[in-house]
């Protein structure tokens, strides 16, 4: 989808690259994923955040057909994830880079490129060549002799040269130096500019904030945040006030209040909307000179969302 003809995402046919409905996975007694319902619009760059063990990898595995859900359903590129036959066609149009980024030990870089290339009719040899040159990958070296950085670059080359409609990347920049990281983000952005949907999980919140237009946060198997950096910058605020006496019960049970934290005389509220209303009420009750209204970074919101009550 050339950017000059950009339409609002949601207007294109099959407007979601990934959709799940009540997706659930139990291992014996452990509930890895609980009732996950997400929608990833086509053409978006969606960041998938969550702590280790929160259920990100399990979710991705279910989307790729590597694991069978205990309950619920999902569609990837308009194909039911439970339909093994049709899923093969969907996989021809997507690329997945796992967290491991391991490659076949017994193949050289050239061999694994040739091997992967053979499965994708939409393979882009120009991108393959461009990335080979940029990354300076040694074609005849066995992959087991590559450094971690070069292995990641090879894995990304194999994904980006496919001409895929959807990229699913698990921690794509983990362990990479800042220069290479920026390069990879640049490539991801370039792919998105060509219309590819990018769904990537990451612990680097700053990166997600930089390039994502959608953010999904998963905690203990459940979706706890579904927003965008834009919404956060426009709507989320931290409002702080000073109070000599403890606030009456329910004083801050207002529309938009997400979290209330008390530290000595300082009461801090995280709000997702109705900022003026909340600030007014807090100023009214406050014994201090003023009420502060501060913006919130994605990192702060994620950390707040993950706090245990």
């Amino acid at each position: 989808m050339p950017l000059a003809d950009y339409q609002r995402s949601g207007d294109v046919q099959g407007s979601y690259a990934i959709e799940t409905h009540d997706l659930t996975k139990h291992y014996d007694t452990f509930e890895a994923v609980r009732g996950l319902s997400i929608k990833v619009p086509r053409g978006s760059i969606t960041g998938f955040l969550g702590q280790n063990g929160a259920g990100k990898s399990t979710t991705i595995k279910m989307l790729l057909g590597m694991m069978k859900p205990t309950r619920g359903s999902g569609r990837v590129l308009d194909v039911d994830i439970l339909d093994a036959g049709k899923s093969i066609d969907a996989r021809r149009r997507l690329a997945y880079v796992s967290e491991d980024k391991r490659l076949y030990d017994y193949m050289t870089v050239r061999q694994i490129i040739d091997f992967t290339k053979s499965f994708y009719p939409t393979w882009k040899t120009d991108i393959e060549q461009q990335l080979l040159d940029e990354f300076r990958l040694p074609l005849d070296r066995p992959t087991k002799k590559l450094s971690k950085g070069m292995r990641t670059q090879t894995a990304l080359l194999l994904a980006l040269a496919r001409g895929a409609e959807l990229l699913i990347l698990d921690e794509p920049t983990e362990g990479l130096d800042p220069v290479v990281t920026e390069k990879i983000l640049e490539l991801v952005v370039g792919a998105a500019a060509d219309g590819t949907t990018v769904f990537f999980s990451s612990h680097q919140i700053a990166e997600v904030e930089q390039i994502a237009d959608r953010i999904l946060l998963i905690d203990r198997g459940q979706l706890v945040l579904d927003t965008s950096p834009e919404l956060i910058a426009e709507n989320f605020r931290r409002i702080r006030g000073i109070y000599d006496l403890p606030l009456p019960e329910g004083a801050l049970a207002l529309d938009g209040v997400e979290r209330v934290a008390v530290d000595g005389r300082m009461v801090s509220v995280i709000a997702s909307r109705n900022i003026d209303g909340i600030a007014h009420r807090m100023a009214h009750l406050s014994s201090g000179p003023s009420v502060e209204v501060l913006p919130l970074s994605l990192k702060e919101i994620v950390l707040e969302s993950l706090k245990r009550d």
Partner: protein
Amino acid sequence: MLFRKGWLETRSLFVTALVATMAVCAFWTLGHEWVNQQWQRDLIEHPEWKNPPWFLRAMHDYPFFIWHFVYAEMFQKIWVIFAVLLGIGGVSREAAHGTAGFTLSLPISRVALFHVRALVAVVELLILNLAALLTIAGCSRVAGLSYPLLHGVTHNALMFAGGLVFLSASLCLTEFVEGEYTPALVGLGAVGLLYFVMQPYADGLPVTGVAIPFAIPRLMAGSGDIARIEDVHWLGLAVSFTAAVAFAALGRYRTLTRDY
């Protein structure tokens, strides 16, 4: 390209087995004269040593000599070890190594992966038998000994048909046992145990009742005299082959239905 992957994956193992096979076959053919001379000397110098049942015949019957040392002993063991190691692998092993995600996200079915791997293994085992046949025939000629080709064909065919069950069991085992090296250890351990238990039966004790499943090594070797069709233990072969198919089906089912 899946076949190319299968080949690259098993290449080192195959070459090792091939070299070992050809070395063993070359030794017992080219070295037949030398071995015989050692035996002659031992008979004279150590009359007190007890001779194993096959000894006297092996001294003067060359095809029997080959049968004993190659088909019944060394080559058979190489073949079986190779069959077990070949069967280990696939997506299950890749899961331990970290590449399962990459493989399973390719636009290919799990069944295709399984079939290709099995087929590559079968072809490589066939080539191994062929290599044994040709090496023995060729080296025998070089050593000036006559070796009936039918003998070689029969025994290699028997080993292949009877031994497929090892490959199958291994293909199946790898789908149930996790880890990069554990399945190999379990498989080789099981085979080691089998041969240890079976050893007394290998050379002539009657095989009855419950010992029949353990008689595979003897089945694969056949008797030293096999020249006619009736000498083949057809029932044993049928049972072994059926077991092979059953193991393969189970392994295939498991890879289709399990989570990775």
